[in-house]
């Protein structure tokens, strides 16, 4: 079963420059969470703080009875056994082939025999679709394969918490779709708590139970997927719908003059596109933490955008807007 992560008042800065401050959120046990944010807002830094690779300046990260922000090195190594982390480029050990890479955590942390290790490793390698490539070195395979091998290695100790650092960066849309399906299936099978750091809108709209958005050195929003997708909050709306109109500019946030000019020109955000259905596990059975479509909207009296939760809603950003225009 998954583990809850409670983050309170987390602040991190590098050399006087604040990355984000007072981030408070709870990643509920067993749910899939996505952390979004424009490039350079410290999403990866947040992830590294969660596994204790970076120490936050202030705040707490509670996992079970441990506080990762204050605990000692030894305790940290103990807590990390709960984690599986997929790094951006897979972070495979360059001197070992894929098989040895995936077997590495088992050999270091367990006293299993080589034949037991072999069956576990081959199972994970098959799960990520790398059967036949297990004798290759990381330098000899493509980025997508490295990523999948990194995933197999992260899964091998049956983690309670899975963190993904941009699983979709550098992957083609088809492979991204497969990977997203794999993530949902894994969540169903393992019941672990998932956190995906990404800026892929498709992933954010369809995969998670909860969405968070880091922007302008703070956590702009964190909550259920339907809440974020219905949100009228300009930043959330702009980002989740990949629009140019809104407070986020090319370099950083737009200043008051630019916003005033934008308002004067009559540019307004298009209406919210329909909310797509959440991606379901491939065996058709619901995930343990899955909520019925539209439940949050119903419970909170929020009217979802027209056309929401229809099976044929396009997931590509902008497409819904185009359709809306065509009709108008």
């Amino acid at each position: 079963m998954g583990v809850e992560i409670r983050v309170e008042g987390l602040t991190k800065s590098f050399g006087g420059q604040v990355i984000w401050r007072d981030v408070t959120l709870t990643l509920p046990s067993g749910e899939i969470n996505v952390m979004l944010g424009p490039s350079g807002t410290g999403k990866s830094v947040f992830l590294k703080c969660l596994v204790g690779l970076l120490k936050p300046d202030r705040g707490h990260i509670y996992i079970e009875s441990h506080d990762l922000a204050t605990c000692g090195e030894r305790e940290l190594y103990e807590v990390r056994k709960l984690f599986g982390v997929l790094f951006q480029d897979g972070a495979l050990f360059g001197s070992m082939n894929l098989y040895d890479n995936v077997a590495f955590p088992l050999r270091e942390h367990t006293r299993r025999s080589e034949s037991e290790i072999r069956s576990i490793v081959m199972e994970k390698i098959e799960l990520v679709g790398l059967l036949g490539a297990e004798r290759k070195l990381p330098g000899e395979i493509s980025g997508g394969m490295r990523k999948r091998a990194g995933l197999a290695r992260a899964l091998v100790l049956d983690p309670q918490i899975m963190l993904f650092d941009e699983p979709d960066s550098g992957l083609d849309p088809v492979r991204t779709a497969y990977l997203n399906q794999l993530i949902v299936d894994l969540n169903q099978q393992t019941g672990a708590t998932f956190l995906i750091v990404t800026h892929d809108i498709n992933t954010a709209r369809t995969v998670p139970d909860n969405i968070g958005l880091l922007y302008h050195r703070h956590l702009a929003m964190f909550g259920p997927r339907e809440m974020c997708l219905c949100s009228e909050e300009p930043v959330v709306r702009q980002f989740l719908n990949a629009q140019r109109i809104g407070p986020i500019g090319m370099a950083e946030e737009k200043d008051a003059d630019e916003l005033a000019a934008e308002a004067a020109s009559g540019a307004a955000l298009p209406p919210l596109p329909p909310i797509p259905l959440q991606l379901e596990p491939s065996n058709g059975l619901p995930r343990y933490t899955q909520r019925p479509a539209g439940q949050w909207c119903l419970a909170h009296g929020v009217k979802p955008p027209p056309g929401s939760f229809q099976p044929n809603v396009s997931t590509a950003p902008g497409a819904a807007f185009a359709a809306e225009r065509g009709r108008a």
Partner: protein
Amino acid sequence: MRMSERSSWQPTAPLRATGNLFGFALDVFRALPRRPFQWREFLQQAWFLASVTIVPTALVAIPFGAVIALQVGGLIKQFGAQSFAGAAMVLAVVREAAPIATALLIAGAGGSAICADLGSRKIREELDAMRVLGIDPLHRLVVPRVLGAMFVAFFLNGLVSVVGVIGGYIFNVILQGGTPGAYLASFTALAQLPDLWAGEIKALVFGLIAGIVASYKGMNAGGGPKGVGDAVNQSVVITFMLLFFANFVMQAIYFQVVPPKGA
């Protein structure tokens, strides 16, 4: 990221860097006795270091011995003390030349290789991945490398001593027309056994310093492939400075502790 961390240079920056290096060294010492010891990594690293240093060391040692023979041979002729040529050679090679040549090679060839290896692991996030998998890279990677560097330095010192003395003999006897008997007979006139031990202890310390500096620089490399190149460069320069300084200090202590022969 590390680049932008220090937007303005602060006067305490060198102190902080020194403190970090020292703290790293203490961490390595703390990780030293932790079980299980990584024998496999230790043997691989020792073998690797030996393979990159043995041939250059031997090739450096021959001209090193020869140049000392040249200097000492000329000087000693002016004093009319040719019979002591061998004694002076052994003294110079065993006490100074061998540890210095070892230091050059272990820092230049061994240290740079260690630094480049750890640096590229660092920028590929391999070290982070290892930490997340619950394995301390200090214990798993750095300790075996530091011990490997010490182990190899110890034997390199012996190698340089032997090759240097042989090189000096060939130069002195064959090229400068010295007498083989006098060269060999005077071997122990000035040099004594503690000289050899002192040289070996120096070599161990050199290996330790080179291993720690190279590992520290490698594990703190940042800023992509260029960062690794910078780290290697800095690691070699810093190691050289530390080694020559340590050499001086140790030699000064040695002269206080062990009286010269016949004194």
